[in-house]
């Protein structure tokens, strides 16, 4: 069975390591914060100026001066700190954040990512995405394997305007975990009950499939 958004977030959360500073993009990536594995401590950085981003507040405790990059109300954990946007992007560009998780519309087999513009249709802007993908050592993309029309989003070459070039190393979709190496996608894991055939059929890019592909473990 293909994963839902929560499943994708849960699988990505398994990549978190103790002591990491992590930036989560808007959409599916924000859900990762809800599934931190037992026994490890991570701190979430939000590009709009907080380190130590906590969960959503309880009803009645919302603070208009405390929001995340998606403009949602949040709380701050013990030991949190506020800072300005130049300092925030110094943390990001200066590679002080160990993991960046963000969404995508398209990813190509050489690691290009497109997630900010559909020409003539949707031009919301790139926000912090270009800074994040250009600087991060460790980027995981959370995305759907194909679009609503069933067309693959895991491609040989991106057709949409790029956010970054050659920067993505790992992708988690509702069907699979993929790694990008030597200009190709490598199938690392399948979602429970999802066949290799289904993944191959929905992947337009070159896909290297080992003899045995384990299922994701939850």
């Amino acid at each position, binding site marked *: 069975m293909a994963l839902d958004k929560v499943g994708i977030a849960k699988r990505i959360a398994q990549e978190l390591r103790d002591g990491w500073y992590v930036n989560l993009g808007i959409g599916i990536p924000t859900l990762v914060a809800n599934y931190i594995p037992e026994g490890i401590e991570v701190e979430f950085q939000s590009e*709009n100026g907080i380190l130590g981003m906590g969960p959503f507040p309880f009803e009645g405790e919302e603070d*208009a001066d405390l*929001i995340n990059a998606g403009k*949602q109300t949040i709380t701050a954990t013990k030991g949190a700190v506020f800072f300005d946007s*130049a300092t925030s992007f110094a943390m990001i560009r200066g590679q002080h954040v160990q993991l960046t998780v963000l969404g995508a519309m398209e990813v190509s087999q050489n690691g290009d990512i497109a997630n900010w513009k559909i020409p003539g249709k949707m*031009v919301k802007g790139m*926000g912090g995405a270009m800074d994040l993908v*250009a600087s991060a050592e460790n980027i995981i993309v959370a995305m759907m394997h194909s679009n609503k029309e069933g067309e693959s989003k895991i491609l040989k070459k991106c057709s949409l305007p790029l956010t970054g*070039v050659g920067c993505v190393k790992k992708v988690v979709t509702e069907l699979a975990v993929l790694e990008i190496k030597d200009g190709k996608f490598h199938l690392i894991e399948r979602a429970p009950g999802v066949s290799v055939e289904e993944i191959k059929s929905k992947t337009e890019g070159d896909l290297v499939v080992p003899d045995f592909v384990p299922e994701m473990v939850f």
Partner: protein
Amino acid sequence: MNKQVKNVEEALVGIEDGMTLMLGGFGLCGIPENSIAQLVKLNVKNLTCISNNAGVDDFGLGLLLQGKQIKKMISSYVGENAEFERQMLSGELEVDLIPQGSLAERCRAGGAGIPAFFTPAGYGTEVAEGKEVRIFNGKPHILESALTADFAIVKAWKGDTEGNLVFKGTARNFNPMMAMAGKITIAEVEELVPAGELDPNFIHTPGIFVQRIFKGEKFEKRIEQRTVRTK
């Protein structure tokens, strides 16, 4: 040095059609609400606005867009405003979308006397078109130039009569760098105190960057996405 002005009317004297303004805020958080309302009242037109976002349809910079007062926006993300997207796709509004980190650093550089700097953000994308590329540490970077404005309008939590500013929470965001980069910087604050009341160790923006400061009459502090968890 007393930078205090009586009210928003006095604070915005001198803003004219065709000027370039910087406005602080991230989404609706930390926006100079009273100044934006005054800009609507003054009906200044053909503005170039540098601000991370464009507000929502009926609040923040969205109000200036409704009144067709903005000729050009320089922002990083405009997704929350349908009127903005419409004006942009139809060609009524000129838009420069730039990476958020580059926007922040360009404002900081503008205030800091750094005319240009190299950043990896945007290399290989539309953002890099026409810009010089140089390799540092084996990685390509693009040259970005500093941003300044005729007026920078910022919002702070507390300020004193010297123009020293303290921000609260994530309402800080772009305000400190824009305060540096305005030829004239106007600060609207929730609390205005006499010089000497703010602890010098805990001031975020030194008053040297601020030319006018006033206490805002009221702050709605609208929440864009009220998101809660259940007990």
